[in-house]
């Protein structure tokens, strides 16, 4: 009989252990993390550099959570109001419940793979006296908690504010709060079963790094597509904009409901939340909860055997490929030490999914998206009468002063001055999004000790990281300048000015980022994400560049608006400022890097 009974106590112990091992939000004190790392590695822990502030992390999380919740609540409220005006208030729970199911499906897929198949505890768990179903319940509970946290930020505020907007009764809020616990259960159980089934017969996610990289890119693309969809639809300021531009009236009772029928019980939840009478609403809700739990039970029953055999299949060794003599010869071709150091830093960064996402793709993609929406907004805002085509012959206005008097030439000299300053500001902003430099040392973690073993000077090792960071930061700006040069037919000297400014800001951003990371490296982390995500250095470096940009652009504005200098002088003044700032920071970096690295102890 014991073979079939599950021990709730064991499950509780397991969930507690799993959550401690992979916290949903990591707020462990740095001191505790440091002690833990010392215990795990057996190293005495001589790290002398300052460690990040726990309260800083809490404030950051609260800020981010609050920001998301505010946006969600605002959208929910406006949707609720608009829908109640058109007599479609009952659509609000349908839309939000569908959104919850979709979130549980899309993110659940990645969470399930990560928690069920990629966590480090699996080898230990299989030895311990847990039944497969208990391990599955434990893992499912952890995944469910991830969903709860996401729903609490994205959907709960929309549910509540939407209810206020639509004027729902008190029982709606009670049921909404209770529903948060059961809403993701059925979709997540369905997704868990599908993943367990797939992994048993086609272990597609066997390579953890490759899977994480691909899934991170897919999530990024989904988020970007979503944000672009919303921003494109935000042009229409009607009520439908809030619901993503979708005319819900055409969908009522049809497509949404059909989507919901994919997940047992969810139509009952929608019915219950949209009910104005209390007892029928409660009855529907109870039925919804029962169906969700039944789905979970069926998933466990069918999935437990598949899960364990899938795990075994995944952990079987892979095929080794022997290098041919000629390939070995090519692979060992000598390179300059600096190139080799750059290659090491680059490979370690792009082959670590968390670093690739945060340090490389973030730096490359985020600025481009900002700019696309910014430029679209600018062009839309200026209207059709405005044209920058004269910039192709802007050379003649370069040397002209720009008092706002009269005449076409003066107006264009004025606009040219603004363009020179704007180019500086925009490119400074672009370079401030530099994920590589502020984590240059932190990415090494406890293995940074090898930097002290190599017969290469500290300055050379830092230079390799600096060049990589600068190149990655430079790329989006260069693409933008090339695009502008082609589309706006920018004259050569303006394009050259743009390239020099971007190069200077990228260098400055890398120097500032690396310097900050050397002063406060985050070398003790449990997983790579902490090195880049829980690293306040990234935020500080960002702020430092914005401050430096403020000074530079402010200086140009001062020369322009007070002294009425011509665009040529603004251009030269901007470049001179950047040159001096670069010289200062590179001098500081070359002086401080060897001292700070020497002081690091492991």
């Amino acid at each position: 009989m014991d073979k079939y009974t599950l021990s709730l106590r064991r499950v509780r112990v397991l969930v507690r252990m799993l959550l401690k091992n992979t916290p949903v939000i990591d707020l462990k004190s740095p001191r505790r993390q440091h002690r833990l790392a010392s215990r795990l590695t057996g190293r005495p822990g001589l790290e002398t550099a300052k460690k990040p502030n726990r309260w800083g992390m809490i404030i950051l999380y609260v800020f981010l959570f609050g920001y998301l919740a505010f946006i969600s609540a605002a959208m929910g409220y406006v949707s609720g109001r608009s829908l109640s005006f058109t007599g479609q208030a009952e659509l609000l729970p349908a839309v939000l419940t569908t959104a919850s199911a979709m979130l549980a499906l899309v993110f659940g897929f990645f969470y399930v793979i990560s928690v069920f198949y990629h966590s480090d505890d699996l080898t230990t768990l299989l030895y311990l006296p847990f039944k497969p179903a208990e391990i599955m319940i434990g893992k499912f509970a952890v995944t469910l908690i991830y969903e709860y946290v996401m729903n609490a930020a994205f959907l709960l505020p929309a549910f509540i504010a939407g209810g206020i907007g639509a004027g729902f009764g008190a029982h709606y809020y009670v049921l909404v709060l209770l529903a948060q616990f059961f809403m993701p259960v059925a979709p997540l159980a369905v997704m868990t079963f599908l993943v367990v089934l797939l992994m048993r017969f086609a272990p597609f996610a066997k390579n953890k790094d490759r899977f994480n990289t691909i899934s991170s890119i897919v999530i990024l693309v989904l988020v970007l597509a979503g944000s672009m969809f919303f921003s494109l639809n935000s042009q229409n300021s009607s009520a439908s904009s809030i619901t993503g531009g979708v005319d819900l009236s055409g969908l009522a009772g049809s497509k949404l409901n059909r989507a919901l029928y994919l997940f047992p019980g969810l139509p009952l939840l929608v019915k219950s939340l949209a009910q104005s009478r209390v007892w029928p609403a409660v009855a529907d809700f109870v039925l919804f909860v029962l169906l969700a739990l039944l789905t979970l039970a069926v998933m466990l029953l069918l999935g437990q055997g598949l899960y364990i055999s899938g795990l075994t299949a995944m952990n079987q060794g892979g095929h080794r490929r022997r290098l041919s003599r000629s390939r070995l010869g090519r692979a060992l071709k000598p390179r300059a030490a600096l190139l080799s150091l750059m290659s090491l830093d680059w490979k370690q960064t792009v082959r670590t999914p968390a670093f690739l996402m945060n340090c490389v793709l973030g730096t490359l993609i985020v600025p481009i998206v900002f700019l696309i929406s910014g430029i679209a907004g600018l062009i839309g805002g200026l209207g059709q009468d405005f044209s920058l085509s004269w910039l192709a012959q802007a050379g003649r206005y370069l040397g002209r002063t720009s008092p706002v008097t009269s005449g076409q030439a003066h107006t264009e000299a004025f606009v040219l001055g603004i363009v020179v300053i704007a180019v500086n500001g925009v490119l400074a902003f672009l370079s401030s999004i530099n994920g590589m430099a502020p984590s240059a040392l932190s990415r090494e973690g406890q293995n940074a000790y090898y930097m002290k073993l190599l017969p290469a000077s500290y300055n050379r090792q830092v230079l390799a990281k600096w060049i990589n960071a600068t190149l990655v930061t430079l790329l989006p700006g260069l693409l933008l300048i090339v695009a502008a040069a082609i589309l706006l037919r920018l004259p050569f000297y303006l394009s050259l000015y743009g390239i020099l400014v971007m190069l200077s800001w990228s260098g400055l951003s890398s120097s500032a980022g690396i310097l900050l990371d050397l002063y406060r490296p985050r070398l003790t982390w449990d997983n790579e994400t902490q090195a880049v995500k829980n690293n306040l250095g990234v935020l500080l470096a960002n702020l430092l560049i914005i401050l430096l940009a403020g000074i530079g652009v402010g200086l140009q504005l001062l020369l322009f608006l007070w002294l009425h200098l011509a665009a040529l002088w603004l251009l030269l003044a901007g470049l001179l400022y950047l040159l001096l700032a670069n010289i200062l920071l590179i001098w500081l970096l070359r002086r401080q890097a060897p001292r700070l690295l020497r002081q690091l102890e492991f």
Partner: protein
Amino acid sequence: MIQIENVSKSYDGKTLAVKPMQLEIRSGEIFGFLGPNGAGKTTTLKMITGILQPDSGRILLDGHDIVQDPLEAKRSFGFVPDDPNIFLRLKGVEYLRFIADIYDVPAAVREDRVTRLADTFGLTDVLGDTLQSYSHGMRQKMILAGALLHEPPVWILDEPMTGLDPKSSFELKQMMREHADHGHTVLFSTHVLEVAEKVCDRVAIIDKGSILFCGAIAELRQHYSENSSLEAMFLQLTEGFEQQEQQAGSQAAAENLQEEAKHG
């Protein structure tokens, strides 16, 4: 040759991990560093290799001061740390190329050396795979191959036999012997007393940051019974030291109390 002159190290400026130490490891010898966990072996090795900076004294590697002339000193040794989990996302061949580039291993000899080391340690079939896919022992062997690739005169190995299979362990011991016989230096730390007994020309037994004994194992036997095993001598030495420390501690405490009573 490694010269350690009056070197000490404390953690957080309080706990003395290595008490002032004087030691010379000569060319042509295999020198074993023995001691219980936390004795100060790894801290000493880290100071020798430049990972930690000593509080006082100086360390010379083949005549180069590790603090004053770090680059030349670092070129003169190959180091194998106790934890081989580094560069895990590099392929074996990429790791060896990196080491060869950094240590300026000439193009003409690179391939031969890599092939020879890979054959010796049974790594030929895995050179194209990332270190992440290796077992602990294979990672250890790859780091070992990397440390020997530039043929440094001084080998510094922290627990090098841990995780090695018998064949690789045997090969490594042979290589250590040959290296020393060519007039070079091998310094390694170990917990395995049999290995030390078989391989080392001289050993130092270290506990609580102090060298309790330094010399050939035969000399150690002269102090103890001729027929004692190294294990028995090691335990006697370290436990005797612990008792002495405790006695010295209680004596000092008693003296303090007496002083306080006098003045009280």
